């Protein structure tokens, strides 16, 4: 199964990755791994050579950290995996748009909504907001916000 195969490959490349299995089935994925911002490119290359596709890139804004969530999937049943990257509010994660060409627009959208710049992405113009927009709406210090929490409040 490709999912076990890719887990082995990731562990080889990034030995101190922590894998969290999902027993409840709520996350829709087999496992979720937290990698450092410097290791996301190696992980993405491993996924690309193994035949996975990039389903989604999403960002979360917590009080103490930013979180990027990458969903990878292949065309077999039940093979979705999640890779998370945690980094501070002033750090710049690397882009994977040369590995997965579809990541260009996904990173543009994340930049639009959160202001996260991706180093190596040649085109970070606003995608969904007007061209002259200088605000980042989904940050928790913009507009009407119900709560601004720390990451451990939610994920423990």
């Amino acid at each position, binding site marked *: 199964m490709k999912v076990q195969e890719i887990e082995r490959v990731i562990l080889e490349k990034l030995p101190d990755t922590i894998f969290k299995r999902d027993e409840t*089935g*709520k*996350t*829709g*994925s087999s496992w979720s791994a937290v990698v450092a911002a410097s290791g996301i490119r190696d992980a993405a290359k491993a996924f690309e050579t193994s*035949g996975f*596709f*990039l*389903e*989604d890139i*999403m960002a*979360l804004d917590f009080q103490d950290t930013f979180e990027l*969530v990458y*969903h990878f999937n292949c*065309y*077999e*049943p*039940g093979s*979705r995996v*999640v890779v998370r990257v945690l980094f501070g509010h002033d750090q710049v994660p690397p882009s994977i748009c040369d590995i*997965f*060409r*579809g990541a*260009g*627009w*996904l990173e543009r959208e994340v930049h639009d*909504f959160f202001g996260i710049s991706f180093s190596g992405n040649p085109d970070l113009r*606003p*995608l*969904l*907001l*007007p061209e002259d927009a200088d605000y980042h*709406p*989904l940050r928790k210090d913009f*507009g*009407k*916000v*119900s*709560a601004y*929490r720390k990451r451990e*409040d*939610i*994920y*423990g």
Partner: protein
Amino acid sequence: MAERQIASPASQKIYSLNLGPQHPSTHGVLRILLDLDGEFIVKADPVIGYGHRGHEKMGENRIYKQFLPNTSRMDYLSGMIFNHGFALAVEKLIGIEVPERAKYIRVIASELNRISSHLLWFGTYLMDLGGFTPFLYAFDDREHILDILDSVSGSRLTYSYCRFGGVCRDVDAAFIDMTRAFLKRMAGRWADYDNLVTKNIIFINRTRDVGIIDRELSRQYGVTGPNLRACGIGYDVRKAEPYEVYDRFDFEVPTGSKGDALDRYDVRFKEMQQSCRIIDQALDHLPGGPYLSKVPQKLVPPKGEVYFAFESARGLTAYYLVSDGSTSPYRCHIRVPSFGNLNVLNEVLPETMVADAISILGSIDVVIPEIDR
């Protein structure tokens, strides 16, 4: 396919043309900045965001129940399927049991919605290519579906029919009769559409070998849905990660071979017929019992997240809800299939002609407000 006469670089004059955002064939408010060399496209840059309404920020400022109408308005052609998916996502997050009858009713409504979405795509695609008659035929059939769903949910386009724990109103004998009459009517219509469109030489010439999206390109851009199945990969979320009662029905997942516009048309056509099969089986096995389980008025999910994927009319759609233990989500993200489907145009449109660009844009079936959220 026409041969491009490559002019020498010195005499090549690049002409910039703006397609949209107000255009009869862009299926919403899409703008494509084209660089043309004669009639051939050298560079295509889609500009989106003209329909951005801030659904994700709204999700953080609404309680779960209040977000239900938003879901229908994102992809308004598969509004019932999006509703269904959101109800399933929240039920998974909280752990609500759904009665059997409600499951079957939701599947019937979702498949009817899928047929109506494909019928509308069929009508508008042919209208883009220049034929107005299939549009009228498709909308006539579509009105029958809308009548059925209108009688039970009260709305023709943007339903809020599903609730957390079931559906808001039960179906009666009139619904079942109308649905069976519709299925009987459609059984005779496929031959009409075949004669009108599928065997039409002009249509075949405008769609064969046009806009080929092969497997590698699909994988790079995350293309899903009928566009992916047209290039031979039979990936359908209803079969890969069965939800609701889809594993109890016997249906096929049609695939193409080449990934051109004609294959995409064929796949969607056959999908409509398979949806009719699912509805038939669901009506045969519709159980009795309650249609809505008891759910507390104030929904407070436990802390955590849920990522629920389902198959909308356009491909793999997913709701990602992060709950912080309060009545509104901390983050409400929707993964939409049209994002990847449109993204791939950056690479498919160059080296085609403008007329082919319209054909390609119509065949990938994007709904722009879904991308813009």
